[in-house]
């Protein structure tokens, strides 16, 4: 399984755009890139998922270069409520019993300040 590397922590201010980059040099052809958000004492929550180029939804954008060895989660105009841990996961959650699992890296703790 591909290993991911993210910054341990980031600080930002309300209203700013935040970009969190994740490295996954050993990503496999069948792997997707998924980002989760986790608040204290809660289960992780799906934010966005992509395979290549750019994906955008109502809460975030995900940029993936052509070599797919990294990805960047972009959060536009963050607010205090975006303070959380953000996890980048790489894996193939389809197929046989030998796949279908996701391993968490250490995550990035984002602190949004007023």
């Amino acid at each position, binding site marked *: 399984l591909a290993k991911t590397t993210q910054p341990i922590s980031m600080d930002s201010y309300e209203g700013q755009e935040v970009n969190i980059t994740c490295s996954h040099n050993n990503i496999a052809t069948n792997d997707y890139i998924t980002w989760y958000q986790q608040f204290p004492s809660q*289960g992780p929550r799906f934010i966005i998922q992509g395979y290549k180029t750019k994906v955008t939804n109502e809460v975030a954008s995900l940029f993936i270069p052509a070599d797919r060895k990294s990805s960047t989660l972009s959060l536009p105009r963050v607010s205090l409520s975006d303070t959380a841990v953000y996890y980048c996961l790489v894996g193939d*959650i389809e197929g046989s019993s030998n796949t279908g699992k996701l391993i968490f890296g250490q995550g990035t703790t984002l602190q949004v300040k007023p």
Partner: protein
Amino acid sequence: DAMVIQNPRYQVTQFGKPVTLSCSQTLNHNVMYWYQQKSSQAPKLLFHYYDKDFNNEADTPDNFQSRRPNTSFCFLDIRSPGLGDAAMYLCATSRPGGRGNTIYFGEGSWLTVV
């Protein structure tokens, strides 16, 4: 509406006294996972089921067992909890068969060992 439901949310058990955590899902997903998350750490995969096919992670202690009597339910059994097993236990589900499927997490069960 909650799709992955964990019970109990909070469990206190005595050192060495067996405990069972339960998870149910309304998504009819093939795959169910159990993760352990200790304070300030990322979730760690213990094992997962692909239908009835059980997949244990190599470093999951024998003290941790699991049962999946049907598609909707999965149980985590800790045979002899130690102080080091105090953590939040996360259940999750996914539906393989199509690329980019999402993993859905429950809200977690907090285990305290006294």
